[in-house]
């Protein structure tokens, strides 16, 4: 049975206090420093989870964040990794993906079905008859998945921290520490990270290495700890490598996004299992798992242990564990023990029986727990009772980050391991991931990596790399076929040995297809324990070397990362008009407008009443609207006119000083992207506005064209320095006359004129515009003065019952004038020749944006914008924007704008229809959502005041 052992030297737990939690309803006590798994084993819980597919009992495998069969659930958290997470006091944990509890899980009945569920079975069944598939699908969906997600999980985001360092050393074992140490005193900053709670890696959990390295480790750590330029981060996982040496490091307080000038990868190796029947029984584990458990947490995961050896280090592990006080009776070697040299002799001297080469290995269990192993040696069968079988047959380099950094690997047949061979600039590897296994070799390799990085930083250094280990550290064929299978290669996905040969024979015979067909490596541990064996098995099937088989791509992440950590802080830029407070007080209903928000309308009665009141105010008296969201640019310099003529379709450079022009911008394809007003302030000075949501893009175009054409012009974006207010209505001149010295008569300030003036004591720029169809002025003024001016105008206008109006009323007012709204009445393929704006395209200019395309597009426009009206007089109009214009079974176009015109007493709108149809058409049929057809008359788009008489000096 598993149990706690007496205190170990330098153990990670503190035994003076207890943390209490429950597992599957049973109370468990842990010491601070325990992982959930170590605490469970300490109280003899060896059954820790169920497998994904067959619900087989599973226990500890690696104790190193690869135990994806031991994922736990709490009331709010899911897929908690018990082998590395510490238990929370008072928390209730259960195993994921069980039916009726871990012990009795009736999901294990699925195992009885396993013969009919071979690899790829789901491609081969359940789809006939078709109507039954949804039923099967529901069953399959319900059976799959691991833990369940609680919608009660607190929406915690963790801020992302940015860190810059000269050299990031990933892995705090012997090689990493030696490398970091070599970098000290060279004026370089260094960060060493390690995923464990303490630095040292194997120097801690291997007894022999701990003894051999005690002084070195203490000296090195104290040197690093006292160095001002070095930081040591524990419980920190480098989860990926990205362009320009950017490495997200996951820590308790969120992701530290480290940008390093250089990186040393000393991530070591991952112990890989042997493949034999029942190799998944609780009690069968990796030798390094047992070493971690006993030396870190003082836990013996078994009573009676046997070591399965595929390399020399298995013997070291056996001897170490025995000296740690665990009972290790036997080493079963896959090869002849004499090939292990002195190791076999040492083990026997230690009282461990050494047997080999063994064949036909199989684990046996009783009540879901390892009880014995059977094997053949020299032709005779044996059975040994045990409750612990420690696999030590090979190592897979933890080279994921190196692969991502485009380091090239080659296969070393002597070592039976792939080795990094070609490095991009500023990256080095050291230690076991680099093929150096002995303690001295790892330290020397770390120093060599440090020296390489010093050379990279153009410092003086000598690289003396130790030789690669000369004996294989991994067994080339660590598997035992069995007619009844259950010899697992991938524990996440319950993939067995014969699944590979089936997949191979069915044609999935390269490494990628095999992965996809068998799903090997697709589970939570992403193949870290299984990919090497899978590749070796495939190599044998192909009759080729491991080097020729290749490998699948190692993608981020190294360990899974929570979305809360990835998301970082919630940052949503928002731009506020200076007048938002005024709008709120006036009862604004808001709508999003890109980064801005704008009043849709102001509530005063029902929605319809509010809109109608706003409309009436503008048409009959006075209305005022905040248009601060418009893009606003100063264009200054000798080439100012030329720049605008290049960017806009018309001859805007011909505008007279003191006058504005409505301007249209197309992209290179001739598509309308923006409109605005260009006001000529002086010979070399324009003031240009742009649509709210396109303003930034327009600024980009203006500056890009200026740079491309080497123009002598400066474009200044003052969008957010200025506010803008549009005030309009028959009584506007009376009102403004009282607060400005500017003469507002048509002769002094004509329609479409622009004037710099003083208004309410504030310097402003006024433009006489006609967007809403009444006499109106767009007043551009300093952001800080906007509230003062707005309030003054509102106070003064009270006598005329002035009302602020929102975007909806503005849209209705402009619709009556037939003004298009870019991106509403136009779409991603509308060009000027499909609209009433064709006259704004001036081909006399040799160059302007969109010219090449427009020359062609003007010949055969596909569509036309038309105006329409119906006799509907109700306010609750059934026609909506984007209802289709149809002719029987053909779609002719769609409605782009529609609204009820109180002035005209009918519903009006704009529609875009096919050009051919538009020629001479009198009527259109609009289909409503409910399918009903509404007939409408085609009319000119200037619905209201077509002669612009309301702009004349009537006041």
């Amino acid at each position, binding site marked *: 049975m598993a149990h706690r052992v007496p205190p170990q030297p330098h153990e990670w737990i503190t035994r003076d206090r207890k943390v209490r939690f429950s597992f599957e309803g049973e109370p468990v006590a842990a010491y601070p420093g325990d992982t959930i798994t170590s605490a469970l084993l300490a109280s003899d819980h060896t059954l820790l989870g169920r497998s994904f597919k067959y619900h087989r009992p599973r226990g500890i495998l690696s104790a190193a964040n690869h135990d994806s069969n031991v994922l736990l659930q709490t009331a709010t958290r899911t897929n908690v990794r018990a082998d590395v997470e510490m238990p929370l006091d008072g928390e209730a944990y259960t195993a994921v993906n069980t039916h009726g509890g871990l012990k009795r899980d009736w999901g294990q009945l699925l195992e009885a079905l396993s013969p009919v569920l071979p690899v790829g079975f789901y491609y081969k069944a359940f789809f006939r008859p078709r109507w039954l598939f949804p039923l099967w699908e529901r069953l399959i969906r319900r059976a799959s998945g691991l833990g369940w997600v609680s919608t009660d999980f607190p929406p915690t985001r963790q801020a992302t921290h940015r860190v810059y360092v000269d050299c990031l050393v990933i892995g705090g074992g012997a090689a990493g520490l030696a490398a970091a140490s070599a970098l000290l005193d060279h004026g370089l900053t260094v960060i060493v990270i390690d995923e464990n709670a303490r630095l040292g890696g194997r120097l801690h959990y291997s007894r022999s290495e701990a003894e051999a390295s005690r002084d070195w480790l203490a000296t090195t750590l104290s040197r690093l700890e006292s160095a001002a330029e070095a930081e040591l981060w524990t419980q920190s996982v480098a989860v990926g490598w990205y*362009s*320009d040496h950017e490495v997200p490091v996951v820590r308790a307080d969120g992701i530290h996004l480290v940008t390093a000038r250089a990186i040393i990868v000393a991530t070591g190796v991952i112990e890989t299992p042997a493949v034999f029947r029942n190799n998944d029984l609780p009690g069968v584990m990796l030798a390094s798992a047992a070493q971690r458990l006993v030396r870190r947490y003082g836990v013996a995961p078994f009573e009676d242990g046997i070591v399965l050896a595929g390399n020399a280090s298995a013997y070291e592990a056996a001897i170490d564990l025995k000296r740690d006080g665990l009972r290790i009776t036997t080493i079963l070697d896959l090869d002849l023990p004499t090939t292990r040299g002195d190791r076999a002799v040492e083990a026997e001297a230690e009282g461990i029986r050494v047997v080999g080469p063994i064949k036909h290995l199989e684990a046996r269990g009783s009540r879901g727990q390892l009880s014995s192993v059977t094997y053949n040696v020299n032709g005779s069968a044996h059975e040994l009772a045990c409750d612990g079988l420690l696999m030590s047959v090979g190592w897979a380099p933890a080279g994921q980050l190196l692969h991502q950094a485009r380091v090239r690997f080659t296969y070393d047949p002597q070592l039976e391991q792939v080795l990094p061979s070609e490095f991009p600039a500023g990256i080095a590897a050291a230690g076991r991931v680099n093929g150096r296994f002995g303690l001295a070799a790892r330290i020397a390799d770390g120093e060599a990596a440090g020296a390489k990085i010093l050379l990279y930083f153009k410092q003086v250094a000598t690289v003396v790399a130790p030789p690669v280990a000369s004996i294989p550290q991994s067994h080339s064929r660590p598997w035992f076929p069995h007619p009844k299978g259950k010899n697992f290669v991938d524990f996440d996905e319950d993939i067995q040995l014969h699944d590979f040969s089936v997949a191979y024979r069915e044609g999935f015979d390269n490494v990628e297809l095999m992965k996809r067909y068998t799903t090997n490596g697709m589970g939570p541990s992403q193949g870290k324990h299984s990919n090497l064996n899978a590749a070796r098995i495939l190599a044998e099937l192909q009759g080729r070397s491991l080097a020729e088989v290749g490998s699948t791509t190692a993608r981020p992440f190294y360990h899974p990362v929570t979305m809360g950590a990835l998301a970082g802080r919630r940052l949503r830029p928002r731009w506020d008009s200076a007048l938002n407070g005024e709008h709120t007080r006036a009862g604004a209903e808001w709508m999003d407008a890109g980064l801005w928000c704008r009043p849709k309308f102001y509530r005063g009665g029902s929605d319809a009443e509010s809109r109608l009141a706003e409309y009436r105010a503008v048409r009959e008296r006075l209305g005022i609207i905040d248009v601060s969201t418009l893009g606003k640019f100063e264009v200054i310099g000798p080439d100012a006119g030329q720049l605008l003529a290049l960017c806009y379709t018309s001859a805007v450079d011909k505008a007279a000083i003191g006058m504005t022009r409505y301007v249209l911008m197309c992209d290179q*394809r001739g598509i309308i992207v923006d409109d605005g007003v260009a006001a000529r302030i002086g010979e070399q000075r324009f003031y240009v506005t742009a649509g709210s949501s396109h303003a930034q893009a327009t600024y980009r175009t203006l500056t890009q064209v200026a740079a491309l054409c080497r123009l002598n012009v400066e474009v200044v974006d003052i969008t957010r320095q200025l506010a803008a207010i549009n005030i309009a209505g028959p009584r506007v001149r009376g009102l403004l006359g009282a607060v400005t010295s500017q003469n507002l008569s048509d002769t002094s300030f004509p329609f479409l004129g622009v004037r710099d003036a003083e208004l309410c004591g504030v310097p402003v720029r006024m433009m006489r515009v006609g967007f809403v169809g009444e006499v109106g002025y767009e007043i551009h003024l300093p952001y800080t003065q906007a509230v003062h001016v707005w309030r003054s105008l509102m106070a003064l206008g009270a006598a005329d019952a002035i009302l602020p109006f929102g975007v909806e009323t503005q849209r209705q007012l402009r619709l009556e004038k037939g003004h298009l709204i870019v991106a509403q009445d136009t779409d991603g393929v509308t060009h000027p020749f499909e609209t009433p704006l064709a006259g704004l395209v001036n081909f006399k200019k040799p160059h302007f944006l969109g010219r*090449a395309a427009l020359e062609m597009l003007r010949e055969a426009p596909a569509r036309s914008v038309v105006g329409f009206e119906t006799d509907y007089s109700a306010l609750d109009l059934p026609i909506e924007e984007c209802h289709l214009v149809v002719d029987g079974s053909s779609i002719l176009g769609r409605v782009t704008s529609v609204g009820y015109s109180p002035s005209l007493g009918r519903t009006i709108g704009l529609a875009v229809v096919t050009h051919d149809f538009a020629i001479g058409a009198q009527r259109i049929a609009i289909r409503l959502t409910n399918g009903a057809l509404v007939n409408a008359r085609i009319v000119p788009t200037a619905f209201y005041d077509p002669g612009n008489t309301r702009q004349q000096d009537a006041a």
Partner: protein
Amino acid sequence: MKQFRCPILGLRPAQEFICAGSAIEGLLQADSAAARSGVYFGDATARVKREWWYHRPSQLWFLIERDTASDEVMAIELAQPVEDAHGA
């Protein structure tokens, strides 16, 4: 993350930039057949390209030579010298 070592700005993350390719360069093309062809067609194979990149926080344009196969940056220059822009 990709970072650009820019004149004036120093090292800036690629996220701060908008890539505008090189389409704009057709604007001044004299040969109208070539100008027309360039609107929709080009050489989009992987190679070293000169592209316009706009840096949002500083509102500056850069010309960046970049290998579109490896994402490696060969050269970065300001599209318009800042002195020019200030009329100096």
